[in-house]
């Protein structure tokens, strides 16, 4: 099974998420993760969908079916080495009085993770990176009591030098910010 990251640029309209996910559901393709946000261009949303599939050909067909949706502006299917990508994970770790102290230096320097919130008897640690790095950190921090763990969907940009606007149909795209 190969991991594919599918980036879908769309108009920002109600119900589009449903229309897109139906295309995966109908083909019995499981979505590993999904992230949606507005891009730097006003009115353009970007869906980043991660799937695993054994057939590149089927993924190409999937991409073409997604492109058929009226509100979809552009779609790209990427392999991992064609993109720069990251996820974010938050770990809520128990730190009651008398427990083993956290090795903050190792957390920071070795794992590039940061404590972002200090509670009374717990801390929240943020770790960004690819899934491998996040699970390496998970394995390390497991020695402490993990109260909660949450991982986001993948965000990704292609390694091409082109900007988003060059992939979109011609129009006067305004910046969102």
């Amino acid at each position, binding site marked *: 099974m190969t991991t594919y990251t599918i980036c879908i640029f*769309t*108009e920002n309209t*109600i*119900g589009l998420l*449903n*229309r897109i996910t*139906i295309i995966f559901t*109908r083909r019995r393709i499981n979505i590993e993760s999904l992230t949606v946000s507005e891009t730097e261009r006003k009115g353009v949303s970007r869906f980043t969908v991660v799937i695993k599939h054994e057939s590149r*050909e089927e993924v*190409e*067909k999937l991409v*073409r*079916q997604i*492109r*058929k949706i*009226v*509100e*979809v*502006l552009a779609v790209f299917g990427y392999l991992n080495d064609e993109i720069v990508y990251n996820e974010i994970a938050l770990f809520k770790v128990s730190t009651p009085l008398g427990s083993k102290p956290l090795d903050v230096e190792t957390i920071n320097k070795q794992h590039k993770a940061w404590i972002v919130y200090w509670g009374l008897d717990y801390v929240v640690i943020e770790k960004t990176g690819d899934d491998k790095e996040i699970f390496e950190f998970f394995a390390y921090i497991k020695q402490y009591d993990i109260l909660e763990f949450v991982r986001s969907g993948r965000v990704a940009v292609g390694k091409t030098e082109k900007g988003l606007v060059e992939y979109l*149909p011609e*129009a006067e795209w305004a910046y969102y910010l």
Partner: protein
Amino acid sequence: MEAIANITPDVIETTPSAQQAAPKLISGSEALMMSLIAEGVDTIFGYPGGAIMPVYDALYDYQDQINHILVRHEQGAGHAAEGYARVTGRAGVCLVTSGPGATNLVTAIADALIDSTPMVCIVGQVAKKLLGTDAFQEADVMGVTMPITKWNYQITNSDEVADVMSKAFYIAQSGRPGPVLIDITKSAQLELMTKPFSYERCQSIISYRPRLAPKQEQLELAAKLINSAKRPYVLVGHGVQIAKAEEELRIFVEKTGIPVATTLLGQSTISTDHPLYVGWLGMHGNYGPNVMTDHADVVIAIGMRFDDRVTGDASKYIKQAKVIHIEIDPAEIDKIIRADAPVVGDAKEALKALIPLVEPNDHTVWRNEFRKYDTIEYETITAPELNNPAGKIRMAEVIDLLSTKTKGEAVLVTDVGQHQMMASRYYQFRRPNSLITSGGMGTMGFALPAAFGAQVGAPDRQVVAIIGDGCFQMTLQELGTIVQNKQPVKAIILNNNFLGMVRQWQQLFHERRYSFVELQNPDFITIARGFGMDGQTCDKRENLSDALDTMLAHDGPFLLEVIVEKEENVFPMVPAGASVSQIRLK
């Protein structure tokens, strides 16, 4: 699409009472009426109900400009709109209420999507403040229809109406046509617009840009393959008629001398007596065209999507051939069969551009190879079916005689099953756009309302529906619509008291275990008379010709029931999952 001047309330003709009462700012319902008029809509198939009543109230003032046809069931509205769209090439329009009104339309919407039929469905919805509350007759129609529409949209604000409707018609009718559904809340129908109404026809949508003109390099590659082919073969789908490219197709094949087969929906694109026409493809298509598919070295597929009913086992289909796929929908390229030369664009544009690039040719030897299979098919199947004086009337005889009597000029609208395949096998189409059938979805109950819609769309043509006894009972209430609207639709029920195609499969593949396929049928002619339609039954071969004459000469709609052989099979047949070369003659 031509640009039109802005439409304002002043330029829309209304009844005197409406003019007197016309407010400066109009309601969403009136805006909807004006949008339809601006789009040139002359006919709506619909059924009123609570959540669409304000639109119906507005429609009352525009009856002289928009012909509303009250059907008997919303599914009938959908199929009638499909029939209308298929003969006119313009979007069929349906108007129904919320909840069950909309869900009753769902089958027709799915049918229209798979057969690329332009349709605009306007559906009432509960008031905006009630959305999501499980209100009376509320259904999530947007969710339900998302996978079966080309586009759908919910209007919750009267100011949106004009823009959304213009988009709806543009999307439904352009590129690869399809159904669009507009869900409009009752509050949006009732509330006044905050700005004066104006309408501009949609010319483009930034995220939706169907490619009409193919790329030159794609055409050149295709032409190179065609010019070097020894055994080229053209497969024509419905897309050629959608693109109105029948003439370009004829010129193309006559110049290149390439034999032409059609898909089921592609039938009537080229006259069946054209010397280059070799028959139709698929599970119950002709023998030669199916077998010869495996002998071609270059296949030119135009406006077709390699449906599994055409390919049989796709993994064994045209492996030996180079494939040129001319198709407006890029998602169809490589979907089932990998194309060596994909040509993305409108069939008319593609053929026009291709004609000067191809060299004149004459593939006589190759073409003649089809003929020997024709002879086998004729001797094994056709002749016995047409010339067997014993037993009950056969479906083939009815269609063959109908074809002769109508000179192949009728619009044939068929339902789904054995009669559909027999109609396709034995009717000799002489004019384009003459077979309207539910190809992709295989919707039983399609024919009667679709024939009605086709007759409304093509009042000058003879429309004949060929219907099975099972299919008829799915939408027979539309007899009432036909009678009320005085449309001269002729309907032939080929009655074998069976769900014939299922029975055939049970016979061939389930050891004759006829599981729930025999019908206790009503007296169809009494039913027709109950609706006010004339009709008669024919169960003797010697009366068949007179019965058809009576039907065709009848002034107005007519139902002819023909009692046919009970256990008749449709051959040739490619068993499901087999390769096309494994086509069976018996």
